[in-house]
């Protein structure tokens, strides 16, 4: 069944208008027109008249959950989410950065999203591979059924098969290209630390200028800080101006966390985040 982006857009606008008019929410996090049709932007509607600027099409890849923490606690917010974005909402609720009762989650079941930089179709290779939001108060379209279910970790196979020296050379090349613009951090809903560890001076974890050792420390530590928290939305990689495939490393860590601790980020409202949790019977094998 084909996705009608136009229908979703209409429903999104209708709901946004209704919620704002009724005063149920004071802010709607959605998407708006950018400099052209193929380059939409994140958009915040604050009153009913803003709603006409809302769009939804296959290039609306942004994870709007990144903006949730920027509002004072208690702000009533409606947010448009796709599958991975809804997982980010759940994860933020776990971490008590936002309260569930302050949110109206507008779920968008969808497939066929496209990378606005490259035009490439986005699937489980660069994102979590789910089609339907995991959390929602309403759905803006019909649930997707019948689309191929591909593991989001299949894309790791060639990298895991690489010899370690080859793999190191691959990552060194990638990290050396990093210009430390921190777009990855800005795009990620889970990176809400301000100041970030790398911005600190006491201690100075890494050099602040783009060079090998500081880049390595920044990225490896960031992967660690996101372990069990990254929802595999892929936005960090799409935001990167030099196209570093960060999603590969995040997927690897997510898969290890799933195997070692039996949990995936943002899938269930009950879980405790993996690294602030333990089971007495966690196996010592995980350290081998």
């Amino acid at each position, binding site marked *: 069944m084909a996705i009608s982006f136009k229908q979703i857009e209409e429903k999104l606008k209708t709901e946004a208008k209704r919620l704002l008019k009724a005063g149920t929410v004071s802010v709607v996090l959605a998407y708006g027109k950018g400099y052209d049709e193929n380059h939409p932007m994140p958009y915040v509607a604050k009153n009913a008249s803003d709603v006409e600027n809302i769009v939804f099409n296959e290039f609306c890849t942004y994870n709007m959950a990144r903006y949730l923490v920027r509002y004072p606690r208690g702000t009533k917010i409606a947010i448009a989410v796709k599958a991975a974005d809804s997982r980010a909402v759940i994860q933020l609720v776990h971490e008590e950065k936002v309260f569930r009762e302050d949110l109206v989650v507008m779920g968008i079941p969808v497939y066929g999203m496209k990378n606005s930089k490259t035009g490439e179709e986005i699937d489980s290779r660069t994102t979590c591979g789910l089609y339907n939001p995991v959390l929602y108060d309403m759905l803006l379209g019909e649930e997707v059924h019948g689309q191929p279910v591909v593991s989001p970790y299949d894309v790791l196979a060639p990298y895991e098969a690489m010899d370690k020296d080859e793999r190191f050379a691959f990552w060194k090349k990638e990290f050396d290209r990093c210009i430390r613009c921190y777009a990855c951090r800005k795009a990620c809903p889970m990176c809400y630390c301000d*100041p970030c560890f790398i911005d600190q001076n006491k201690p100075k974890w890494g050099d602040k200028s783009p060079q090998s050792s500081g880049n390595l420390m920044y990225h490896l530590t960031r992967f660690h800080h996101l372990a069990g928290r990254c929802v595999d939305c892929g936005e960090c990689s799409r935001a990167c101006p030099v196209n570093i495939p960060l999603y590969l490393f995040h997927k690897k860590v997510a898969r290890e966390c799933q195997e070692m601790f039996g949990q995936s980020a943002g899938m269930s409202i009950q879980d405790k985040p993996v690294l602030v949790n333990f089971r007495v019977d966690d196996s010592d094998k995980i350290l081998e």
Partner: protein
Amino acid sequence: MSRIGVFVCHCGLNIAKTIRVSELAAFAAMLPDVVVAKDYKFMCSTPGQEMIANDIKEHKLDRVIVTACSPLMHEQTFRKVLAASGLNQYLLTIVNIREQVSWVTHDIEEGTAKAKALLNGAVYRARLLSPLTSRVIDVSPDVMVVGGGIAGIQAALELANTGKKVYLVEKNSTIGGHMAQFDKTFPTLDCSACILTPKMDAVLQHKNITLMTSCEVSEVKGFVGNFDITVRQKARYVDHSKCNACLACTEKCPGKGVSEWDEGLVKRKAIYIPFPQAVPQKPVIDKESCTFFKKGKCRLCEKTCEHKAIDFEQQDTFIPVKVGAVILATGYDLMDTSELIQYGYGKYPGVYNALEVERLFNSAGPTGGKVTLRDGKEPQAIAIFHCIGSRDKNHYEHCSRVCCMYSLKFAHLFKEKTSADVYQFYIDMRAAGKGYEEFYNRIIGEDVKFIRGKGARVAKSAEEPGRLIVEAEDTITGKFIKLPVDMVVLSPAMIPRADARDVARLFNLSTDKQGFFMERHPKLAPLSTMSEGIFIAGVCQSPKDIPDTVAQAYGAAAEALTIVEKDKMELEATTAMVNPASCCGCQNCVRVCPYGAPSFNAEKRVSEINEALCKGCGLCASVCPASAIIARHFTNDQILAEMEGLMEF
């Protein structure tokens, strides 16, 4: 810029044999910020310590590095030297070149090289050390004991005798606990009330004990040395200050409730005293069975009372109490065996549990001490079942420890008071205490029949109406037994009280799988808990008999004294603190701390650490993504600097 003094110890030949100590000192002297570097035969000796003290003054040192044996050996010794010289004791670093270098290698080159690397690391770290002061806080001298059974009573008396003020908080309207319900106690068969009631009276009379009955703890705030506890005094509807315990009010009361004291075997009035030796000896009104509270009529007790002590307007009140330490001695319950339907408890009138049988034996009990069944008849044959619910994977895995002994006691008393045949159905006989094995042997000689096989089922006898049939396998002979009896006594599992989890939550304790309070260490700290200042004693920690309970009560009293005997306490200095400017409010620290030291300030949206609770483990610092937590004396930059120094050469 620091002024570092490095002192290298020879430790006789212990270090000097494998490490070129003078070369080490010379190496140190070349390092930036090191203004004096010496070596000496025995640093920990008086001249050695004096050398350090003199050099601190002469060279105006602000950091001291002692390169010698393990810090676990002499860190405290050298800290005192610094303190005596006016230098903060946390500006000391010890480099271990004995236990971890000179004693574990014969190679002088390797040993000296490693010692240099370790020393370099220490110098890097020493530059970044900060003076730390431990805060000194006032300690509240009083102690609260929660639970007025034998454990709570003994602990309270012991503490009160040292001059400390004790608040003894008891849920029921009388103290005494389960022990007051017993008839005789094993292995000496002395009368329980006879040994207990003098203690209960001593509690009442003691000027240092404030007895709070019909009370429950409703809120616990504060921390060790300074607990702010709110105690809820439940309405008793009797004014204790006016009541003289004449009990005239109880005579005409029409209300009927079920006697908890007599384990439900008889009814009692709505206004009642649980048992004749209750302490305090004042009646209490049970709202659920009182005619006035239910229907709005009656008030006979009020009319009868000459001292106008009845007060139906009484409300629950909340009493704030400040104490320095708390002992929890909240005891146990017996498992409700009605869920084990194969035994027919609650279904067949002839099936009893252990506490009910205690009440039957007790001369103040519902049958005046006679062993008669619910229909008034005397039993001709009695079966005692061990391990009902205990040692059972489907219910409670633990052994309840006392049932073998009280089953033997019951057998003896049954033989004494009736002419019945007595059968013991057991899995093992556990008689480990002092005098227990001897008691067991005595009972064997009293014509009690022992069958090694757990009681499997109790059924109604088809042939003899009114009688029961017990079924079991005699595992020694391998035969199945079907025995007609009149009475079955079950030994139910000893389990934590129904509200144990709530009490644990109030005091921030963990409970084990069964629900008993978790001790700090099962062997070396059985009476303390992970919540500093909260101690446990008695069966609330795990099933045990009276001698062990009393021993624990005394032990807990001693533990509590270690907190309250000083009027000031020094808090741990190497605690953690949150830099609010960097905190991102993720609450990771709040989630992981074993001591509950961090808490989230919802207004400021940052976490804060209560330094009185912090033990300095550093877990919070490593889960903090923003590096906002400063783990004093083990900060991120101190550790990174040490690593840099260690890897430099």
